[in-house]
């Protein structure tokens, strides 16, 4: 196929970056759901991360501080959800939806004075020598630090859930909180930690939007990416590498279809616009089509409230 003016190096570079916010948020939610908690507030945590990171970066002049603030602010918001659902035993679905609405509202309040402000530039990480390599250099070794961090997190989460004792406890809590509790593990502590971790990653994803991809603060700028992240966790059947695949497919096809339009490739635009959703869902459904295994991977206690007396 004639690709016209599309430069493959720029394209791959763009799609890696475009996928990163969704990947970060989805990895966070994966850990949360593996601990048996359904937090539908991803969108709210992302947008709070976006605004908090933006404010911190603008005020301090340091993008790195911005990312830290984004993770911290979203983790605090997530812990609010944690206290409500785990300590006060409120309904997780309703509380999660409330968290999204709350996050959208408070972020527009926090961001009042920051519309139209330009954040400090977050430079790409140029590895000496390696980034000079032809083709491979720009694609692999000249990305924003968050891209590498998100990939490291995928490996880390996969390894943690699969091979560490603490990861096993987290999964046990998610499969059967009564059993884990009877064995003496702290269901509450494990879940709160998972919720805070999930919040921090969602916040990082949000800051990736407001500091790197767009880069500016606009109300409501996450525009539904938190929901995409939630869907990718489910369609990725709670497996880290499938979530990675899902996020890259979605982000990649989204950017690819824009590039195909810009290059004037004669494919109906309606098809191109639908393609990120269609292809991501299709591929993830096909690879997890072994229903028995996919469902066995869904945490058994997902969304159920736990009380130690029960």
């Amino acid at each position: 196929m004639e690709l016209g003016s599309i430069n493959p190096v720029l394209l791959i570079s763009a799609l890696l970056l475009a996928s990163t916010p969704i990947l970060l948020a989805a990895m966070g939610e994966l850990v949360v759901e593996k601990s048996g908690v359904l937090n539908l507030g991803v969108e709210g945590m992302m947008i709070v991360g976006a605004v908090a990171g933006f404010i911190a970066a603008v005020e301090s002049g340091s993008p790195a501080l911005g990312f830290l603030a984004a993770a911290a602010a979203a983790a605090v918001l997530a812990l609010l959800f944690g206290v409500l659902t785990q300590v006060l035993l409120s309904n997780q679905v309703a509380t999660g939806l409330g968290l999204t609405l709350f996050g959208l509202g408070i972020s527009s309040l926090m961001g009042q004075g920051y519309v139209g402000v330009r954040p400090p530039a977050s430079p790409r990480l140029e590895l000496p020598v390696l980034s000079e390599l032809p083709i491979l250099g720009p694609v692999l070794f000249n990305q924003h630090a968050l891209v590498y961090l998100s990939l490291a997190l995928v490996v880390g989460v996969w390894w943690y859930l699969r091979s560490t004792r603490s990861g096993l406890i987290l999964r046990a809590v998610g499969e059967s909180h009564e059993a884990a509790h009877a064995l003496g593990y702290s269901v509450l502590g494990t879940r709160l930690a998972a919720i805070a971790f999930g919040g921090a990653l969602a916040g990082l994803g949000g800051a990736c939007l407001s500091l790197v991809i767009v880069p500016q603060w606009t109300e409501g700028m996450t525009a539904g990416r938190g929901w995409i992240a939630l869907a990718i966790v489910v369609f990725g059947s709670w497996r880290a590498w499938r979530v990675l695949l899902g996020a890259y497919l979605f982000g990649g096809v989204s950017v690819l279809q824009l590039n195909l339009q810009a290059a004037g490739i004669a494919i109906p635009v309606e098809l191109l616009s639908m393609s990120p959703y269609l292809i991501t869902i299709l591929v993830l459904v096909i690879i997890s089509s072994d229903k028995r295994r996919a469902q066995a991977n869904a945490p058994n206690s997902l969304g159920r409230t736990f009380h130690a007396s029960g």
Partner: protein
Amino acid sequence: MRLTRSGERSMLRVEERPYTRKLGENMTKIVLLAAAAAMSLGLPAFGGSHGDGPVKAGFVYVGPIGDGGWTYEHHQGLLAVEEHFGDKVETVYQESVPEGADAERAMTQMALQGADIIFTTSFGYMDPTINVAANFPDVKFEHATGYKRADNVSTYSARFYEGRAVQGHIAGKMTKTNKIGYIASYPIPEVIRGINSAYIHAKKANPDVEMSVIWVYTWFDPPKEADAAKALIDNGVDVVLQHTDSTAPQAAAAEAGVISFGQASDMSEYAPLPRVSSIIDNWAPYYIARVQAVMDGTWESVDTWDGIGPGMVEIGEITDAVPADVKAEAEALRDAIGSGEYHAFTGPLNKQDGSPWLAEGETADDGTLVGMNFYVEGITGEIPN
């Protein structure tokens, strides 16, 4: 044999673990339902002032009031109404209302709250406005950019295409790669008019110019708008025009060092570069006049379509990044359109397929423009359905 046995085993497993199966299926449903619920809830935000028997004006917005573009300017109109009438008016607004069925809920709610006049400010609210208006014959409705009217429904819009002509001229003069890009939202006549007008005038200014159009199918999605701008720039475009509502493409243009234009609002925070000029929608005089008409009892259903002349469309300051001669030409074009001596669609013009549309000196009639569904000759690509 083996098949049967493994089949039996899997059946058994499912029976043994009913929760697993149920949760796996329900999860998907929960997430999708929740997503749908959250999207449709939007973010209700009500503001306003109270007084004795004031006229109540409602505004339904498609994006957040802080989008820096389209919705921001409508909200400036609301603020101007408050400022002008003081406590004789009460306002109420709702942000980020999705186009489609949910918009009816928002409008119905406002009507039930006692709104006397409701402004619905996006093309996709057209049918919902007509439907709700039929249920509330005593409430006046004003729908922006649509073409369906009723006894209690007016329509109003601005001739944005006049501003696009000025932008197109500057774009054609400023491009060095001879490639300009256009981020388009939905394939509706308003957007297509803008594309045609920008292209015609860019081509006049620079016969070598080519234009790439990206349809993003959203009014407001900053990351997607930024990605679209980057995709255009990565494909060699050095002037970006947008018909979406946020300032995200401006930020992308700033980063890449190319030129852009403010859309709907001045977006002057991105001046002098990348934003070299802008189209500003000035709704305030219209909103004040229509609320006044409700107060006086003189309101009737009208169709308003104003451009640069009456001041509904303004051209934001052309910055010094544009050479003085180009700036002078652009301003002359603006004034000629404003005074009515030049029409942005003046023949000879052919349609994309080469068939003649306007003869030499002929200008387009409003009927054709209102329903415009074709590209002019020279634009590549197809308009999606």
